[in-house]
């Protein structure tokens, strides 16, 4: 199933295009990292996927053909934004009851078991839990309704490293157990390699990179060579970025083998993402999508 499919997707606010001409075809079961500078359109894309806004141009489908925002889509999609929404004046067990009333497919035992395992007291008001516990609670409430797509707009940004690790662990467990697809908007580039299996880089409202992490790491190399050859490198292989330091040049190129005169090594996700972010015109997009 293609969990996200977009063709020439665009979104305009007044006269500004927040997203333009975006094409995506993301298979289900991935943890998608959504990366890009502020204002690149990450939140806009997430809101379009959640059905909170309608596209101004193009076409967007989720969960294998559902229109975002329709009843069928909303049943399978959960959207958690930065503020980690909760009814903070309710006790945890009342929140569970409310969530059960809101969802026909609620898995109460799963939620309760998870909260117990995390040591979150059930009788306390949600607003009085620590930041990390609130994040875990919000995640649990989202995951226990068994969505097929979870959209996270940097909800873990305000957590300390330990709390973030715990929240990620809970998320990854769900991915492993239920085959949940996740779109995670994130600034924390170093963690992407451990956590993500698909990468989307947005820049200036356009999709710069949209591919699986595995294919990206296979098709890119970090190259080191003499600075005098740096200018010619672009003629030999597709180059993403190239930088000079004294007599040595380093480059990120889309190639499986280093050209002659250069030494190549596998590239890390961090280097890949930063390289593309530095070069907004570079692209790593899949070939033409299979038409149905």
């Amino acid at each position: 199933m293609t969990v996200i499919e977009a063709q020439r997707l665009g979104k305009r606010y007044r006269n500004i295009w927040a997203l333009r001409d975006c094409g995506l075809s993301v298979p289900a079961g991935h943890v998608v990292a959504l990366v890009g500078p502020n204002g690149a359109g990450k939140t806009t894309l997430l809101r379009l996927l959640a059905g909170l806004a309608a596209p101004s141009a193009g076409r967007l489908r989720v969960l294998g053909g559902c229109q975002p925002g329709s009843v069928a889509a909303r049943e399978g999609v959960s959207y958690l934004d930065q503020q980690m929404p909760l009814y903070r004046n309710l006790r945890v067990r009342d929140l569970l009851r409310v969530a059960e009333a809101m969802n026909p497919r609620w898995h109460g035992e799963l939620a309760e078991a998870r909260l117990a395992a995390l040591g979150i007291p059930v009788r306390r008001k949600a607003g009085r839990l620590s930041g990390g516990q609130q994040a875990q609670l919000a995640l649990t409430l989202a995951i226990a309704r068994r969505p097929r797509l979870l959209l996270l707009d940097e909800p873990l940004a305000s957590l300390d490293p330990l709390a973030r690790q715990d929240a990620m662990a809970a998320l990854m467990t769900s991915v492993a157990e239920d085959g949940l697809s996740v779109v995670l908007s994130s600034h924390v580039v170093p963690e992407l390699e451990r956590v993500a299996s698909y990468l989307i880089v947005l820049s200036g409202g356009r999709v710069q990179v949209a591919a699986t992490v595995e294919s990206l790491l296979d098709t890119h190399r970090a190259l080191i060579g003499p600075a005098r050859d740096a200018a010619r490198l672009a003629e030999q292989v597709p180059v993403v970025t190239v930088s000079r330091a004294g007599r040595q040049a380093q480059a990120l190129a889309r190639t499986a083998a280093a050209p002659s005169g250069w030494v190549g090594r596998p590239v890390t996700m961090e280097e890949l993402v930063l390289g593309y972010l530095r070069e907004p015109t570079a692209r790593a997009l899949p070939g033409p999508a299979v038409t149905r």
Partner: protein
Amino acid sequence: MPTYLQLVHQVDYALRLGFLAAGDRLPRIKDVTRSLAVNPDTVMKAYRELEVRGIAAGRPGLGTFIVAAPDVAGLGEMTALQRKLVSWLAEAAAAGVDELGMKALFAAALRDFHHGGSAGGHLPGREVGDRADGAA
């Protein structure tokens, strides 16, 4: 170093230090995911790498088990075997087989070896003792 390789090396060291032995079951993918907050695909990739290296083998429904510790054979034997392998690789390359083809050949031969015993020449899927004409 990519995360999956880190996991592979962890298993490697555990074997060398004696914390893991042949026949032990590696932790389930979702347990590793939970304790390390790592994408399950990454764990799967690590386990696959262990299988490719011959250290582990997956049994459907049961899990992934340690098959053999690295360096089970003596150092001298290993060097000789490696030299033989390199000359085979040179032969294959000369015949025009690419890296993917070499891997496929090796995987097929390994499968054959598991199924057919030392005589070789058995097609995968047949058990030892089957008569060629198919009679029971």
